[in-house]
Every structure is written in C-alpha cells, then in structure tokens.
C-alpha cells in the first residue's frame, strides 16, 4: 500500500525561479495493485516516480509505504533510495555492461546489509531468472542479450530483492512494436502472479489501459483524473483526458436541461440536440463539449428507429479511409465533420446519405469550465 500526499517537486533553473515539476500530486495504491501514471512528456510523471524511488527529493509532501513514511517534508524525513527496498526498472534498463547476467541479478542481494550465503543467493537469483526465462543465459555477458532479454533482466534484478514496491519507468518504450506487445502480456502475468504493488510510468495510453488496475492521468504537473481504465476511457472528465486517451469527436454545445423521459441532460449542438452522460454538475445554458469516440458512432444506411432514447442524426459521407480491419468515415452533418469507425462491410459511397446512432451513455458532456486547460 502506497500513499502519496501533496507531493511537490522543483528543479533549480539557470535563471529565474525554480521550475515546478509535480504539483500537489496525491494518490493511493492498494497493496498488490498495478497503478499507472500516464501523461505526455514533461507532465511530471517520471518526477513523481523518481520521488517515490528517492532519486529525487521533493520540496513538499509525504510518501508512505506500508505504514512507513519514506519521505516527509514536514517531519524532515528522507530515507535514501538504497534503504527503501523498492525495485525499479529504468527506461534504459541500466544493465551493467561489466557484469554477467547472473551478477547483474545477484547485485541487490550482494550489497544488502543482511548477508546471504552464496547458495542462498544462487537459489534466489536462479529462481527469479527462470521466472523471466533467462535462466539458461545466467553466465552470459549482459551486453550480449537482446533488447527484450535486457528488459527482462532488469525486471529480474528489481524482483530479486523481493521489493515492497515495483517501480517501472517506461520499461517498454525502447522495444520494437511486436516485442512490446509480448512484453506487455508478460509484465501483466508476472505482476498478477506475484501480487506485487506496482507503479508504472508511461506516455502510451494503450499500455496504460492494457496493464493497469488504476490509471492517474497527469498534465502539467498535476493529476487530472484517477480511475480504472474503463472509467478513464469511457468517462473522461476533461477535454485533455478525452483527447490524450484515444481518438474522439469534440462537439461544442450548450446545455439545455434535463430530459423528462430519460432523466439525462440534453445538449444543443451543431449536429442536433443530443442526450448525454455527465458526472459533473451542469446548469442550463452552460457551454459544454460533448466527447464521443469514433467507434461509438454507429453508422446505418437506413433511418432505423431511434428507440430507447438513442441519439440519431443524419449526414453525408465526406471521406472514407480503409484500414483493413475497419473503415474510418468522415460524416458531414451541417457544418460539422463527425468521425466514425465502422466495420469494413459498410460500403456507403462518398456523397451517400448516412445515419449515425449514438448511445447517450457514450456521449460525455464536459463543462468548458474544466479546471485544467485542454491540450490543443
């Protein structure tokens, strides 16, 4: 269990006031969970991770792991990284080139205060090496491993110390696409098998959605939204989150009022009035943006009944892009271009009339007064 409260970090800058990295970052990770810090580069996610590791010293806040405070600005507590017993996998893997595979993995056991016997070390190291399928390479020079193997070795080195916390700093970003997909499963399996509390930093939304129990989306040093992958994807609370994670249509509109029948808010937009979902307090006449994912825009050639309070609008096919397993349609509705992702079996020609059906649950209304400025 990890608790981070009011974390603030600063970098001294050459001139002017210090640069703020993480600001008022706070979250909690229950034991055994996989927690991801997701955001664009420079959003403060790596700084937050390094503060947890103890490689950075924040200027404010408190970090507690399993009841032990490892950092507190107020109580002037700072446990150095080498006494925290957290395993960490670095972006560059940081495999020591002057050691063998075995020596790399054995290092944490050899340098720690409570000495282990040679045979104990060997046993623990071989066990963790076989967990990452590197046991047959134990005596090899670490530099002669492939990228994926180095990555697994870095993971083994972090796990061998039986850490209280596993910290992963963009560990998959240096791998090629195919390998990255495989390692993603591998990483998920190992984390779920060991039940080790894991903090993962990435800018890749796909990785975050695939691996995490919970995701914190960060922007400009702050956490913008915390939630399960589904919550984050389906119900973004800000334009930034909606835009950063996946592709989406933004439709500007004005809130009208609650619809009597469904109890949903109705929003007037350039493509017509839409029933929407919202987690946030709306008032009538408020400017809102409706976010809807292209795959949630269902295309129909016939004006099927707009039953059960579904939104239905009509327009003309403006452009289409065949992508193999799907077709991207651009639908012109009045002056607005709606993007839709459809099954390739739909072959409406360009200029043809088409109907778009949208589940109100998937049309998320975000007030324009969102606390965080949306990314351009």
């Amino acid at each position, binding site marked *: 269990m990890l608790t981070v409260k009011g974390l603030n970090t600063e970098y*001294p800058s050459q001139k002017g006031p210090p640069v703020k990295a993480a600001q008022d970052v706070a979250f909690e990770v229950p034991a055994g969970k996989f927690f991801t810090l997701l955001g664009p580069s420079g959003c403060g996610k790596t700084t937050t991770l390094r503060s947890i*590791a*103890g*490689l950075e010293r924040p200027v404010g806040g408190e970090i507690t792991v*399993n*009841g*032990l*405070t*490892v950092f507190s600005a107020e109580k*002037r*507590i*700072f*446990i*150095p*990284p*080498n*006494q*925290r*017993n*957290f*395993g*960490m996998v*670095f*972006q*560059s*893997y*940081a495999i*020591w*080139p*002057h050691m063998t595979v075995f020596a790399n993995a054995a*290092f*944490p056991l050899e*340098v*720690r*205060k409570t000495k282990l016997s040679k045979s104990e070390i060997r046993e623990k190291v071989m066990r963790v090496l076989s967990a990452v399928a590197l046991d047959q390479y134990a005596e090899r*020079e670490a*530099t002669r491993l492939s990228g994926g193997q180095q990555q697994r070795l*870095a993971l083994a*080195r*972090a796990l061998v*110390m039986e850490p*209280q916390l596993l*910290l992963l700093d963009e560990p998959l970003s240096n791998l090629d696409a195919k390998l990255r997909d495989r390692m993603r499963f591998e990483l998920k399996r190992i984390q779920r098998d060991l039940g080790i509390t894991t903090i993962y930093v990435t800018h890749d939304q796909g990785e975050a959605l695939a691996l995490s129990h919970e995701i914190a989306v960060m922007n400009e040093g702050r956490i913008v939204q915390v939630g399960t992958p589904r919550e984050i994807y389906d119900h973004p609370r800000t334009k930034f989150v909606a835009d950063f994670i996946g592709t989406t249509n933004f439709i500007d509109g004005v809130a009208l009022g609650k619809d009597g029948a469904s109890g949903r808010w109705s929003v007037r937009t350039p493509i017509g009035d839409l029933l929407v979902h919202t987690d946030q307090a709306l008032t009538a006449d408020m400017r809102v943006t409706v976010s809807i994912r292209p795959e949630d825009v269902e295309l129909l050639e016939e004006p099927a009944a707009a039953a059960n309070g579904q939104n239905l609008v009509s327009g003309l096919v403006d452009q289409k892009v065949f992508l193999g397993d799907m077709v991207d349609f651009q639908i012109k509705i009045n002056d607005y271009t709606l993007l839709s992702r459809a099954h390739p079996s739909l072959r409406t020609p360009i200029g043809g009339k088409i109907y778009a059906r949208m589940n109100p649950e998937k049309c998320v209304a975000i007030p324009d007064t969102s606390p965080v400025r949306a990314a351009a």
Partner: protein
Amino acid sequence: MSDLPQPAPPLAVKADPKWFVMGGVVSIVAWLALIPLAFLIYQSFRTPGTARKPAVWTLGNYLEAYSSSDTLVLFANSVEFAAGTAILALVIGTALAWMTERTNTPMKPLFYALSIIPLIIPGILFVVAWIFLASPKIGIINLVLQNLFGTEKVYVDIYSMAGMIWVDGLHYAPIAFLLMTAAFRAMDPSLEESAMMSGASMWGIFRRITLKLAFPAVAASFLILFVRSIESFEVPALLGLPVGLHVFTSAIYNAIHSYPSNIGLAAAYAITLLIITMGGIYAQSRITAQGGKYSTVTGKGFRPRTIDLGRWKYLTLGIFIVYALLVVVLPFLVLLWSSLQKYYSVPSWEALQNVSLAAYKTVINYPSVGTAVWNSFILSIGSATVVMVLTAVVCWIVLRTKIRGRWVLDQIASVPLVLPGLVMGLAIMVCYLAIGGGIYGSIWILFIAYVTRFLPYGMRYNTTSMVQLHKELEESAAMSGASWLTAFRKVVLPLLKPGLLAGWIYIVIVSVRELSSSILLYSPGTEVVSIIIWEMWQNGQYVELSAFGVMLIATLFIFVMTAQWVGKRFGVKEN
C-alpha cells in the same frame, strides 16, 4: 514492514561517507589550483626581500616589465612564434586528418598509429634532434647540402624564428592531427555527399562544405595550439636564447636565473603570459560552445564514405612518408646515431668505424641518472594515479549531483589549463617558499606541481567517459540497495576503467616529459629525467644525452604498448 530501520534524523544523512570524500576532494582541488596562483599575483606586487631590506608593496615589477622597449619586442616575438607554430601545426594536422579520415590513401591505419608516436618523444629531445639536423655548424642537412654543391653556404639555420616555428610546429602537429581527426569524425558525411550530388568538385566540397563545417573545430584547435606554443619552453630556451631571441617563457626563465634573481619581474611577466593564455582558452571555450549551432554531430553512427583520389593517392602517401620522416624517423635516427659515437660527429665512413656503446655505459653509471629515473618513475605513477582518482570524484560531483555551485568546481579544476608550465612552476615555488614546511626542496613539490598541472587532463578523460555512462546505471545500483561508496566502487569505477586507464597512461607520459615546471622546482637529489637531459645539454654531453634519450623513448614506447595490451586484455569490453 516494521522491521525496517526507522528514518534517520537529517543530521545522520549529512554524516554519510560521501560528504567526507567529496569535501576532502573539493578542498584539495581548490588548494592546488588556487593558492599558488594567489601567491604569484601577490609576489608580482612585491619588491625582492633581502637581508637588509624587507619586501614591500610595489608596482615596480610591472613598470620595469612594461616601460622597457624590450617588452614590445618580447610581446611581438611571442605572438609571432605562437601564431606561426599554431598555423604550421594546424595546416599539417588538418591535411593529415583529412587524408586519413576522408580519402583512400594507402596504409592509413599504419600512419594513424605512427602519428601518435611523437606524443611520447619528450619535447627537449625533439629539439635536440633538430639541432643535430639543422644547426648551421653541425647540422647534417647543411653539411649534406654543402658537400653536394661544394659550397660553404648555410642552407638552414635552426637558431632563428623560422627554425623555432618549424620545430615547435612539427612537434605540435600530432596534437593538431588528433584534434582535427575528432572533428572530421564528428561530421556527418551526408552533408558532403549532398554537395557532391549537387555537382560540386572535390576541391569545391573541401573548401565550401568541409572546411566551413569544420570552422569551429579549426578555430578552437588554432587557439589551443596557440596557447600551447606560447607556453612552450624547450624550443625558445634551446633555440632562441643562444641568439638572443626572447619570448615570454624564456624571459621568465632568464629573470629567475639572472643574478640576483628577480622573482617579482618574473611574476609580472608570468601574469602577462597568463592573461594571454586565459584569453585564448576563454575564446576557445566560447567557440566550442557556439559550435553547437553547426550541429555536425548527430549522434548517429556513420561510416564516412572516403573520397577516391585515383592516382593522387600516391601523392598523399608521399606526404605521409615525408611527415613521418620529419617527425619520427629522422629525429630518432639522428639521436640513435649520435648515441653510438664516443664524441659527437656527423655521419660519415670514418665515424661509422667508431660506433660504440660507450655512451650507454656512461649514462648508466652517471651519478644522478639512477635517482632521476627513480624519481620520474615514482612521480609519474603517483601523480597519474592521484589525478585520475581526484578528478573522477570531481567529475562525479559536477555531472551527477545537483549541488549548487558545482560548476565552480569544474572551473577550479580547469584553472591549471591556463597556467603555462613555467608559470605554474614559479607560482608553486613562490607559494611553498612562503609557506615553508620543508616542501620546497623535497620531491613533494614536484609531485604537487605534476598533480596540479595535469588535473585538467584528468578532468577531460573522466568527463568524456562519465558523460557516456548513463545516470540510470548508478541509480539502479542505489535502488538495488547499494550505498554510495559501494555503487561508486562496484559500478561507476569499473565502467570508467577504460577512460581511467587511457587518462592514466597519458598523464604518466606527460609527467615523464615534463620540463618547464620541474626546471624551477628541482633541487639536487630530486632531479627527474627531463632535467638530466637539460643538464647534459648545458654540459655539452651530446652523445650521453642521445643515449639517454634513445633509452627513454624506447622505455616509453614499450610502456605504451604494454599498457594498451593490458587494457585490451583485461579492460572492460567496449560496446
């Protein structure tokens, strides 16, 4: 996990051994680099103290140094000498670097190896060898030409400004070659290839693309060479002094060795020289910093395509051979020849009958040679080791910590770079004469001088290798639970080993060659090998000097070869 140690109070964090190590190193470096300089400046404002008259504050040294019209001549001579040397070395070095890096001249690898050899020949031996070759009276070149044409005409005179520039320029050409090789290697060849695709001729490409791109490197190299030559002591002392051709370094030496010795005046000259070298180094660092805008370094590994010279490649091969003759083969052969004589004579049939190893025997039994060799051995090994370890910690602080003002430390450790050897010798002499404690007159003063003088070299080698050492390699050691000392010992040092070894070898060699600081600091019993050569020259013991020189060059050569072999065999594999 309640069995973990409770967080230590902030005070205990401060007591980390890392702070002791770092604090100690910082104090040592600051002391070495700054204190002697302060004493030198102080001394330049003092009158000489005698038994009857105590020293007082004065501007007299500067007045004496600057009111004399000789100073103008001195200044002009120094600049002419240094600029000439730098240009000659740069032209040779650039041409050779371009030939080895960008053309298909035959036997390139051999010449690359050969071009390093001059670095191990001590400057004083190189100068002596060229005196044997080109002196108006005994110079072989003159005698051969005179015999050939049956005249008494003196064709070449090494005791002249041109002679000084020639010898020093050749001596610094290998450094220019190394600097320019690095510059050519860092240059993206696709920039030249696109010029070729645009239809430019080979000469056009060289002039309009290659040279333009290399400009920051050329300008920076010129300044480095200029500073190095204006600091040169051996050439002005051996070639300039006998004919009254003075530059700053020889003027400083004269002021100290005149009777009564005028240390204040020497200090005033030294400060002037220091200002010139500071200006040069400052301009060089500015150019290097701004060179980034040319961004010729892309970080991508590229293999430059070489230009096919066609038949012209035999011309470039010829240039290589001439260069090797002038810089390595002729100087060494003339020393070897003279070492095999009983008394110095020009090569001839009669002289060939007199070949003997007598000079070697004399040298080995020469009273102070044993001591000097031992001193040089201890000093070079000791100072190389101390410098590399000190600067490893300094570089670590500068590059790896976020301690405020760490850049100051970098600057301090680089201060000795602007101090000419003779000036540093003077500063250290003044400093430890004033402080006392028996350091002056003992071998420790030479040790201090060498460590101070070669700090910047250690900084350079360590910075280069530490920059390449990814920060995460250390951080992962910390995350694995290693303490700072353990991480430094088990991860940082082993990974720095190739760089440390290369720097160590280099400092051992330059320590053995060192003359310009030692000449002011040695005393009977603490001679080093370069001093022995100097003394032999002053005594006219040419054949003994040659024998000693040949043995010295051979030893250094074997040392470099062995060290490189050891480095390859046991060092960290480079990936």
